[in-house]
């Protein structure tokens, strides 16, 4: 796949282009949002002093349970929700000082497939370019449609597009003004495996071309696969922000599964004392912290108990485990 062209300086980014690119594509300091009470609804703190820096050029994952504050954060960046306190900068532009330019520096791909049935992809792209004030001579409608595999549908009514095509069209629309920062809100929610892989490839291509990606997703394997940095928010608070590898290392937990040649009815006491468990008559489980525990003595104890090992497998900690541990811990604190 050919990557999309490098994001070009727009009206929003031009001043920065002269002075160099910002180190942080998005910078939040003490970002707070309190929704006032209304009728039966109590006042709610959706974001509570979030400090967050998204490095330029990253694919940054924003994770959190439902109601954690992800949408509020994105809506503040998109200019749809007014923050209560704190500062937010997009591509070095303060969203309070220059909201229009800040909005021009960001492209948002919403989760919902909002396409107007009576417009063609080309018309939608042109309309969006008009709203962003992109001069006709600088528009890249055909180029973007081509890159996202929609060139042959450029003049078809949107109602004839499949779900996958609509999803790609939403990405294409968000790229018309070459934003240096692209927000993808649950981009693969409800899509099939093939399209998911296509979208991942396109996200990587856009990132390779210089676009900073902010991704929210409920699929933790997606975040693990795509993102080089991840932030987890819960109850409006930032509870983790690190590289994906560092987050995975946070949980020092691994599981060894031992398949036996001969099934056993009960676990020998020596193995039980080591912490092994009998998952099934022919399978033992052992949970351990790889940084603290060596496996040699465990395997030797199994053999010493007269058991013959047929196969060994280990299961690494995945992001889901990290996520659950962190959010559960946060839930207890809250």
């Amino acid at each position, binding site marked *: 796949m050919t990557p999309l062209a490098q994001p070009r300086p727009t009206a929003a980014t031009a001043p920065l282009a002269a002075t160099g690119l910002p180190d942080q594509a998005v910078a939040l300091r003490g970002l707070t949002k309190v929704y006032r009470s209304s009728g039966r609804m109590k006042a709610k703190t959706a974001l509570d002093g979030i400090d967050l820096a998204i490095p330029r050029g990253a694919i940054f994952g924003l994770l959190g349970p439902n109601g954690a504050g992800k949408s509020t954060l994105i809506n503040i960046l998109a200019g749809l929700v007014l923050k209560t306190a704190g500062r937010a900068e997009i591509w070095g532009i303060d969203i309070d000082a220059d909201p229009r330019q800040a909005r021009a520096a960001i492209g948002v791909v*919403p989760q*919902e497939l*909002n396409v107007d049935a009576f*417009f063609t992809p080309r018309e939608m792209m042109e309309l969006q370019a008009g*709203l962003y004030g992109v001069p006709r001579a600088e528009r890249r409608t055909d180029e973007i449609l081509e890159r996202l595999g929609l060139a042959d549908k450029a003049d078809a009514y949107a109602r004839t597009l499949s779900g996958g095509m609509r999803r790609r069209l939403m990405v294409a629309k968000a790229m018309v003004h070459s934003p240096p920062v692209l927000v993808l809100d649950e981009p693969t929610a409800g899509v099939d495996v093939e399209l998911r892989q296509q979208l991942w490839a396109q996200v990587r291509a856009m990132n390779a071309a210089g676009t900073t990606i902010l991704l929210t997703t409920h699929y933790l394997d997606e975040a693990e696969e795509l993102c080089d940095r991840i932030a987890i928010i819960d109850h409006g608070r930032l509870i983790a922000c690190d590289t994906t590898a560092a987050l995975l290392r946070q949980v020092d937990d691994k599981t060894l599964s031992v398949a036996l040649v001969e099934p056993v009815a009960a676990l020998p006491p020596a193995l039980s004392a080591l912490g092994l468990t009998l998952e099934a008559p022919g399978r033992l489980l052992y949970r351990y912290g790889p940084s603290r525990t060596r496996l040699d003595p465990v395997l030797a104890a199994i053999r010493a108990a007269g058991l013959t090992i047929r196969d060994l497998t280990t299961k690494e900690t995945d992001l889901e485990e990290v996520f659950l541990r962190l959010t559960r811990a946060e839930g207890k604190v809250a």
Partner: protein
Amino acid sequence: MNAILVIGGAEIRAALRNRWIIAATLLMAALALTLAFLGSAPTGTVGAGPLEVTVVSLSSLTIFLVPLIALLLSYDAIVGEAERGTLLLLLAYPVARWQVVAGKFLGHVVVLGLATTLGYGAAGVVLGAIGAADAESALAFAGMVGSSVLLGAAFLALGYLVSVSVRDRGMAGGLAIGVWLVLVLLYDMALLGLLVADQGRTITEAAFNRLLLLDPADIYRLFNLAGFAKVSLFSGMAGLAEQAQFGRAALLAALGVWIAAPLTLAAILLSRKQL
């Protein structure tokens, strides 16, 4: 300004694509031509009557029809987009919320204006071609077409106000019907009841004239049925025309207020709305 034109252009294109403009134009042309040729039927003749008769008939019809079309066009302009999820996306672009209201309103005014001008214009052209009009009649007809667009714009603005005030389309639809009922039917009946009950003790002629300004449909009625001498003879409002306190310019200005005030309020409400 560019954003307003882009949003307005999109509304016009959508109305062309979904056949709104064609349907409304054909409806208005059919009604205008029917009234032009059969408007004199009650007098025992069939054929093109004087243009003033057509102005009277069409004005009476417009008071019911154009507000209805305008409200149908506009009641879900904002709340409908909000329900479909497209409003949030639109507001995420570098456009101000008032520009969204202004752009969509502009587009809808052009849609309604095209349908009215082409539809009613068809009857005007036919009647002009067969020589049923003189210069003053033509002016009255042109005034009727132009003021019909303004009346439509006033109800479009009211539709926008409805659309930003509620959270779902169903409620917006109900409220729009309510606005139509009150301003097109009930207000006049209430005013008539008040006059009969009052027997001229409290409500003076001047006060009555001012009360008429509180309803855009009445302003339109005054402008077209009492604003032109020859038309007022046919409309049976010559007596009222003699006592009319407001000139045509004042009446048009009053319609302008009925456009600007609800639209401004709608823009303010949308700007303050928590989405």
